[in-house]
């Protein structure tokens, strides 16, 4: 099959086109990102007032790290509410008449939307970081590896949100699950600061978990000009496979529970 006839790419493409309808709203909503970055940049300036470096990060790197991690979290569209709604209203069942499995269809759409949304977030974030902390601290290698790892982070987020959404087969409301996932990524995934700021042994454990591959690794590798890229990408691939297998198992078990009454 040629690349242009790949169902996954076609779904991503349609996700991008579908997202155009919401793009203006999305950009307006994300003006808040400027506030967040400004507040954090000001805080870090105070922290860095009497030192040049913390855990290998200078002020400029620390703020740009935040741009990368926030780009993924702000840029992604929310997949779990869609999955929860479609499990509850039975839409997931209608996907069974297609030759592609439902999780793949939804995730590709999500990734397409995310790819489009990532761009304005990166632009807004970069402008804010440039004005508050200085220019991009890495070169082309940092930029390229950052983009690749951000894409990988979007995939992992899609997978984790898919699992949260699929929990709707057994739970009335999965919002608490997403709330927990979000907070884990904030605190133990390294959304606000690199995991290197934690005690070494604790940080070493956190760094191998999937949450770190959503925030810490893309942020760190980008501002360190691509250093440890293979380690980070390898981790993302590993967790991508593991989460993919879990989704497959959960999905296959869940579709037997489908109950769609009436017409």
């Amino acid at each position, binding site marked *: 099959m040629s690349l242009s006839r790949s169902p996954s790419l076609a779904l991503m493409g349609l996700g991008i086109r579908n997202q155009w309808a919401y793009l203006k709203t999305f950009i307006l909503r994300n003006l808040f990102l400027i506030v967040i970055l400004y507040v954090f940049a000001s805080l870090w300036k105070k922290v860095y007032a009497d030192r040049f470096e913390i855990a290998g990060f200078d002020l400029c790197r620390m703020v740009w790290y935040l741009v990368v991690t926030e780009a993924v979290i702000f840029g992604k569209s929310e997949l779990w509410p869609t999955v929860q709604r479609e499990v509850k209203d039975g839409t997931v069942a209608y996907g*069974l008449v297609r030759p592609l499995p439902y999780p793949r269809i939804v995730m590709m759409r999500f990734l397409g939307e995310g790819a489009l949304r990532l761009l304005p977030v990166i632009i807004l974030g970069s402008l804010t970081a440039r004005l508050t902390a200085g220019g991009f601290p890495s070169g082309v290698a940092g930029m390229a590896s950052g983009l690749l790892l951000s894409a990988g982070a979007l995939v992992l987020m899609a997978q984790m949100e898919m699992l949260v959404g699929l929990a709707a087969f057994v739970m009335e409301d999965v919002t608490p699950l997403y709330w927990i996932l979000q907070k884990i990524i904030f605190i133990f995934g390294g959304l606000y600061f690199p995991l290197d700021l934690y005690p070494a042994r604790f940080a070493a454990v956190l760094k191998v978990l999937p949450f770190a591959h959503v925030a810490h690794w893309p942020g760190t590798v980008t501002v360190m000009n691509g250093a440890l890229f293979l380690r980070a990408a390898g981790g993302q691939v590993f967790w991508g496979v593991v989460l993919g297998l879990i989704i497959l198992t959960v999905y296959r078990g869940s579709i037997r529970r489908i109950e769609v009454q009436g017409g």
Partner: protein
Amino acid sequence: METVIRTAGLQKSFRSRVKNPGLKASVRTLLRPQWKETEAVSNLGLEVERGDMLALIGPNGAGKSTTIKMLTGILYPDSGEIDVLGLNPHTDRKRLAYKIGTVFGQKSQLWFHLPPADTFNLLGTIYGIPRREAEKRIAYLSEAFEITDFMDVPTRKLSLGQRIRCEIAAGLIHEPEILFLDEPSIGLDVVAKKRLRELIRRINEDSGVTVFLTSHDAGDIESLGRRAVVIDEGRTVWEGTVKDLKYSLLNTRIIDVKFAEPGPCVPAMEGVTVLKEREWSLKLEVNLDSIDTASVINTITGSHPVADITVAATPLEDIIARIYNGELKGGAL
């Protein structure tokens, strides 16, 4: 003729949690949940031949949609056998997906913000149709379903009638052998319904696709179904040709009379029931097993001047309602 759908002893129940009112009941339910079992389909047997148009009729909650969902692999039956095109819809779901098309009147398969052309192209890709072939197929369906003019209009801006035509065209992109239509005309006005029925009939005649249709609209059955299966509470209550359903099952005719002068009392006749009687008009139901239509007309015209008279079969809707009510039995069960 080749049988393309066969079911035997099909059974499906739904289990739902009982939620009694009040806080006390809620706590009790939390500790000791109570379940209620609803039998949606019971011992259902069906056979459909290639190229046929079968209508599955029933009132709301009869089990029509549950049946179509089991046939398409969406729902697992509790027991019984299903064979669709030689495949088991649950174990061979992916293979079957390439051979069947589905349209669920209440669930759209079109992308809301995008024009139908985009969804059609995507479906072509999902079903692995080479680009050239997909383009040809889309062009053919656009013309056949008269949707060319709004192929580039976002789905959200289409009328319901336009959208349903696009939905059916989308279900046919991959040239399925069977088209399952679940309440396709729901919510449509009379003009849109008529047009839709013509298009479905044409596609069945032109491409030979087998059509399996569920509806509670007698008009759909009358225009589309060659064979009909009436189900109620998950059970088959009548099965046969639509022609039999209309003309043989209920051996009656309706006679409408308009008098030239204010009407008299009609003499009582065996097998004739007066449905409506006014000064200038009369509506009768004639049971052909007891008396023929000509005798009734002769009696009426002989007793009083008549301005107009019409004879019609009993409306299908009434026949179906009587089957549901258990007033009529028979058919090839």
